[in-house]
């Protein structure tokens, strides 16, 4: 197991290096001069040259890439071109909000999706199942940013119940969580349902019934644990999806998170922040996937023995 984790951690390195490299290539291809982005409407050539040198942009980009990687190894992600603050500081000031948002979204998705999926599968062909399937389809189809807007329209503008934005008070968490989590909840519901349907048709579930086990235990002790294996993958993928989805949700609900910040970094050509942010999200995504794989091992002993 330890070796497995170590191997996975080592495999992350080239992937993350690749991510940084691709981001560097993108930064080179992207039009828009970061120096001018800082200086604005009026920028004299002298000021531009001075700032360019100060930012190290006068070096060839492969050199910049090399320097960046050397810096990252020492946990130095450079400084934001816009604010002059270390990228590390800038990002970690916002990252907790994004993680919280994505985390709450996943929690919402799991809490809604798994129970609904189970009931829907167990009561296959019932009215509940038909309804849940239909609602699930709508949940998959509704764009999260539009859902967020419609919720603001209804709960804030029309009813005046919920604050439209912000992320400090728990009451402000409600709408963003639902907005970001609904797609995933529906996906997880559908996944749980089909996975459960498959599992309750499995021979070992029949075996459990043949033992005279009561239905509730058949479902929860025997079917669910196995059904959760693909759901775990989906939940892990959802987390990545939500880290990305946070971009839009944060914009709509004015949450000071990494997603919205990175979008503005892209727009302002603040590449140290953009690259650092993408790197951090890639790292967290990789760790979530690793965590999911470890979770597998806990659920499924077959996988546990493969991990040696």
């Amino acid at each position, binding site marked *: 197991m330890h070796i497995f984790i170590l191997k996975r951690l080592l495999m992350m390195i080239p992937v993350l290096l690749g991510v940084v490299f691709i981001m560097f290539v993108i930064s080179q291809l992207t039009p828009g001069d970061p120096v001018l982005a800082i200086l604005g409407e009026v920028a004299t050539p002298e000021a531009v040259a001075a700032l360019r040198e100060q930012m190290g942009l006068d070096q060839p980009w492969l050199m910049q890439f090399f320097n960046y990687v050397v810096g990252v190894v020492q946990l130095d992600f450079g400084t934001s071109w816009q604010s002059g603050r270390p990228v590390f500081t800038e990002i970690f000031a916002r990252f907790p909000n994004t993680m919280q948002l994505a985390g709450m979204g996943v929690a919402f998705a799991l809490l809604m999706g798994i129970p609904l999926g189970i009931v829907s599968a167990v009561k296959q062909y019932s009215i509940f199942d038909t309804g849940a399937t239909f609602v699930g389809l709508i949940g998959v189809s509704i764009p999260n940013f539009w859902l967020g807007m419609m919720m603001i329209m209804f709960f804030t503008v029309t009813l005046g119940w919920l604050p439209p934005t912000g992320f400090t008070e728990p009451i402000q968490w409600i709408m963003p969580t639902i907005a970001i989590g609904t797609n995933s909840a529906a996906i997880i519901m559908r996944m749980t349902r089909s996975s459960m349907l498959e599992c309750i048709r499995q021979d070992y579930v029949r075996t459990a019934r043949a*033992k005279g086990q009561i239905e509730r235990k058949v479902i929860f002790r025997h079917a669910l644990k196995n059904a959760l294996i693909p759901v775990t993958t989906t939940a892990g993928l959802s987390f990545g999806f939500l880290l990305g989805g946070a971009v839009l949700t944060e914009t709509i609900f004015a949450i000071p998170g990494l997603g919205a910040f990175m979008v503005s970094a892209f727009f302002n050509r603040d590449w140290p922040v953009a690259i650092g942010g993408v790197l951090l999200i890639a790292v967290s995504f990789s760790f979530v996937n690793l965590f999911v794989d470890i979770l597998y091992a806990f659920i499924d002993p*077959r996988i546990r023995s493969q991990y040696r």
Partner: protein
Amino acid sequence: MANELYRGKLLNISDLSIHFFIEEGTVHAVNGLNIALAPGETIGLVGETGAGKTTTALGIMRLVQSPPGMVVEGKIEFEGRDLLEISEAEMRKVRGSKISMIFQDPMTSLNPTIPVRDQIAEVVLLHENVSAQQALFKAEEMLEKVGIRKERSREYPHQFSGGMRQRVGIAIALACNPALLISDEPTTALDVTIQAQVLELMKDLKVEFNTAMIMITHDLGIVAEICDKVAIMYAGSVVETADKYELFKNPKHPYTIGLFNSLPDIEKDEDRLVPIKGLMPDPMNLPPGCPFHPRCDRAMPQCSEIVPENTEVADGHVVRCLLYEAEHNKEKGV
């Protein structure tokens, strides 16, 4: 009338029909099936894939997937009670303790996420008034009994070979000393050498526990090995049933005869086997009359019109074929 013919002491299935209602149509999986079994007796249920053997077994356990499956008619009398009439809670008390089942594929019929010991203990805990500790102890005992060292009892199914897993399946089935054991092709998925071991084990344990058994198989060799009686199934019903020796010696139904002819016989040095022509009928679209008549060498015109009745051609030897029905009726002077 048929019921009287098949009156057994332990299990008496009469006119059982199980249908599946799927979108494409109604699958007539089991149609008017009759089986009787005395305590300690073993009956071999023989037929091709799709003949309705497994559905029958699940029907006895009341484990037919419903929907889409449903027992349309019939009775399953077990120890004097009709299992189709009792409540689900009562049925649960029967499953695993009075009637248990060994499934066809040991690779899939054990829960991959639970150690084998706990899977055996589960059934013990359900039906015997013991503590969890005692149940686990009993489980290890059962494992030893089926030839698995108790050191391995905490391992998971995937750590065992197919044969070993089927041993675990047997341990689960016999843990509560059931009166009836249904074995659904327990050796089909195993290597030939392992098959023999497992069969041997089952035979021994059956004797030890004095369990009646329904052995579902398509292998007449296995029937010869361990059964007392044989029931040949075709298209959802039993077409011929008899004592093992009687049947092997004197098969009556054209289908039974066809089955024997398609087996290789080392003693007769034949060049070619004689397979039964044609295919099993589509259970959604059974032919009228005798379901076997399209494939039957000896089919008569009326075979496609009249559904044959059970005919007792010898003591305990019952055939469902118009050939014998007519003869029998003549003899009886009806």
